[in-house]
């Protein structure tokens, strides 16, 4: 289970990275970013997973003793929430940029934005 999740996450990360580095269309690059982020999120959750553990909510199932053995690590889950939010922000801003860039040049090809160099 963890292995699958781990592999999935790395595959996602690599696909995302490949997308960012190879796609010329800005929107596709942003999609690559999203994939990258998703992979990361899966990775975070996987890292916190404890085999057989339940959701880190203190209720009757978990009881109050030896809680940490029964639940998965709650911190990565908290982290992933933050990370998702941040990823959202980044994606939104990137899209805003993409819009602006399209307005300026009627193009979404990253190679068309090379005025600044050297």
């Amino acid at each position, binding site marked *: 289970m963890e292995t699958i999740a781990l592999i999935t996450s790395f595959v996602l990360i690599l696909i995302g*990275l490949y997308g*960012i580095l190879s796609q010329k269309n800005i929107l596709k690059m942003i999609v690559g970013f999203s994939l990258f982020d998703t992979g990361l999120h899966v*990775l975070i959750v996987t*890292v916190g997973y404890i085999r057989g553990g339940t959701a880190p909510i203190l209720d009757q199932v978990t009881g109050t003793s030896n809680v940490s053995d029964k639940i998965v690590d709650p911190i990565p889950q908290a*982290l992933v929430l933050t990370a998702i939010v941040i990823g959202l922000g980044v994606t939104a801003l990137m899209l805003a940029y993409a819009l602006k860039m399209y307005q300026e040049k009627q193009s979404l090809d*990253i190679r068309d*934005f*090379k*005025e600044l160099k050297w």
Partner: protein
Amino acid sequence: MDFISPINVVAVSLGAAFFMGLLGKKAQTVSYILLLGALLFNTIVSGQWLYGLATNIIDAQQVYTAGFRPPFSINLLMGLDEAVITTLVNIVGLLGAIYMASGLHKKGSGSQVVYLVLIMSLNVIVLSRDLFNIFVFLEVGSIATAGLIIMQKGINAVSAGFKYMLATGIIASIMLIGVIFIYRFTGTLNLDFVMQSHPVLKQGALISSFLILMAILLELKPFPANGWALDVYESAHPGISAMLSSAVATANLFVLYKFTGMAGESLMYYISLIGLVTFVGSNLLGINQTNARRMLGYSSIGQIGLLVAIIGLVPHSNANFKLIFIGILTGHYFAKAGLFWIAGIVKAQNIKEWSVLRNRPVLLFLFLTFVLALTGFPPFPSFWGKWQLVMGLSQQGQIAAVIAILVGSFFEVVYLLRWAGYSIKLEPGKLPEVKLSQFIPVILFGLGIYATGYFVSQATNFGDTINYIPLVVVAILLVVDFLPAYIKNSLSILATGWFAYLLIPGQDTLKLVFTVIFLVGGILTLIPGFHVKGKRAGFYPSAMLMFGGLALLIEAENMLQFFFAWEIMTLGSYFLIIRGKESMVHAFSYMLFSVGGAYLILLGFGMVSVGNTGLSLNLLSQIKFYPVLAMALLAVGFMTKTASLGLHIWLPGAHGEAESDVSPMVSAILLKAGVFGLVLLMLAAGGEYNNYQGLFYTLGWIGALTALVGNLGAVFQEDAKRLLAYSSIGQLGYILFAFSIMSQLGWLTGFTYTINHFMFKAILFLSVGGIVMRLGTHNMYEMGGLIKKMPFSFIAVLIGIITLAGIPPLSGFSGKWLFYNAVIMKGWYFQGAIIFFAGTIAFLYCFKLIYSIFLGQLKDNHRNVKELPFWYLLPQYILILGIMVFSAKPDLILKPLGTALAAAFPSNPLIWEGTKALSQLGYWDATTIMIVIGTMFVILLIWLMLMSRKAQNVKQFNIVYAGERPERPELTHVSHNIYAGYNKALGFLVAPGITGFWNYATNLVESIGNFTRRIYSGNGQSYAIHLVSYIVVVFIIYISSI
């Protein structure tokens, strides 16, 4: 005193941002005031903590959020370091908001909120001790930055912002992976706990810590994976660029510093390597920039690289680490923010358009302040930082790192000072209107950098021994710069006289010679300034900077004082030289050689300090670490000032194109600073029985060849001042040679030459400079026949060249006589013969000088020229008096000098029998010779007058001209290229091989830079690829090394 908890920074900022968001677009002014209020609050909080921690009123304090102790909550640490950094961040945040008032105001609350959030996030990443928290706020900061970048209209800013987002997105993801694995391996996100599990990190979590550090390093824009940052620096609003360069970089550097606990030694090594490569590489590419803001971007990246290198190189336990770091950091922080702000005021992109600053002298002054602070000149903080850094690294034995740092600094100096030169010299355009809100932050930062410089200097080892009085004098002169020139001239003379009064009594004989040359010479060369009408803006501060530096040089007892004085003097002389009409290029090359020389001196001092304690100049006599090499570095450093062969190409232009009364200052006086350095060095080397015979033998040859090439160069000059400048090269070659002999006679020769050169070169440059001023041309072939118009100058020049040529009975002959004896006793026959040959070549240019200017045919347009002004003649005749006294009674000076030298050079002294000097080989009685020649001359004159009938005066064309009449004076005056035959025979010796070499070197550096910078293709995707490949490459290198 109540200390406001730093958590309130976050709270207040967020609260304010929230309200500002509520206010919407309508209440822009209110929200702007809220923004300022919040920023001011932040500043006050951090400032208060800084004050409290610095004065030990309060101890470092942890702030726990959510009522738990770590690791169950996020904690903030407010220590002295954090207080300093947050204060810096908040100040630039506040002033930046003021600076961008119109922009932020216009854009409404949205951009203001983003701005506030950026500042807050920077505060948090500095304070926070939680890894994930730091990550989050780094990300928040990046997003805020990207939001601010888009504030600037135009495609450039937008595409740069997108590139920025791409890069920071990748960096953040990498950091996140690192954070998550750290958590996986250590089970905590708290930095302090992570650090405690350091061994764990070493075993299993190496990659995670590597990724985190790598991410932070990438945030700091390592070369060459930094194209995205350059674009932002270039295109964003200058206020934002300033923020990025000073605040964001400062905060990120601090984060790196916090994280270094996680890095093992080997990673630290790579961090330092990355920093050094960035510093050198970025500055190398900066050389080719013509766009001011992009150039500043390169410089920023370079400086940050240096700071990264410092974090990696200097052990944090080293007592001086913080001093070095803060010194260089604040230098960069103030200067870069200031420069970006000025860039916003100037609006011009091309560095050649920056001369518009001349419309506002205050702005120009601030601009120069910042540029010089960046280049590490005193009294700015980066000078002290760099000094400590070099000393510290040397003592660790990290000479290679020192060299890299100096090379990088040198590249930086190249483009920054070229820029400074353009702004001082090129024709100014029109300056856009300057808003007060833009002006105030710049001024405050200008003041800040001086204040910080002073405080950092006081914290430096031996920094408190620095004498600031000359700088105070300079400051006073700067303030009263609006007064007419004669008042400032009197003030300067008074100040120089006062230095002389302080220094001369009780000075030991050897230093006394130089004190008199520097300061009395200073007074004499300042006198012609009375002739200048108007304000002569900027002249006197520069002159006093130079003379103050020279005075400090005499006073210096430790290496720091010496180097401080050396740099001050260089700076002053640079500003003096660049005042000449055509002297921009020449002042630039002068500065490059000087800075290069200064860096060699610094390196040398560093090597001297290895294995020794303290900084005393006496340590020069007990160098433990490669003594010959250290000695050679120092010697070469000093020889850039004395313009020895190979390092001389700056001199003719610099001295030739300087103003009429500046040329004597820099030629007669300033060159002796290099001699002074050499004298100190050689004395410390152990006098007669030293262990550096090979080195001094080489120096002797260099001196001889310098004399030959310098004098030969002078022969073929048509420009009167360049002729004198080349002659200076030659004379300094004699001096170098004479001192290298390392015997009492050799040193007496050296001193005699030094004193003589001071006197006759001042006379010659004053008269020739005055004539150039009167005639408006440098070309000798355009002069002629001026003896009838300027008899007093003629006499002065005549005496000058007789002394120069060493013809008895004047004092030049003392030098020649001593020289022969010294050379023959030492056994340096061939070098001696070359010097002698050079001496006879001096006749050629002496004759050309006096003949072409004063004799021959008077030109039509010079019929009405007047004698030189009194203020030019006065110092000349005082110096002539000096020459006469020294000629008739050389024992007045040489006897005490011999006594003083006897300690270091005991054998074969010069023996005095009354006025007669006896060496082992020969004898010479200057007084008798003077009497005999004088009497004889008078008798023979009477003889001629008795024998001749009344001589009739004729006009200029009454000459034998083969029965014809001359057509025009300019066709009859033979002056241009009169040594054509000589050129044909020996001209190959002065073929511009050395200039060619330096040109080749310059071109090489430039083309390397030009080639390398093509990696910045402008494509955001390539930049992303750079980033990823950079990580991979560094990772592979790193992994393969452990």
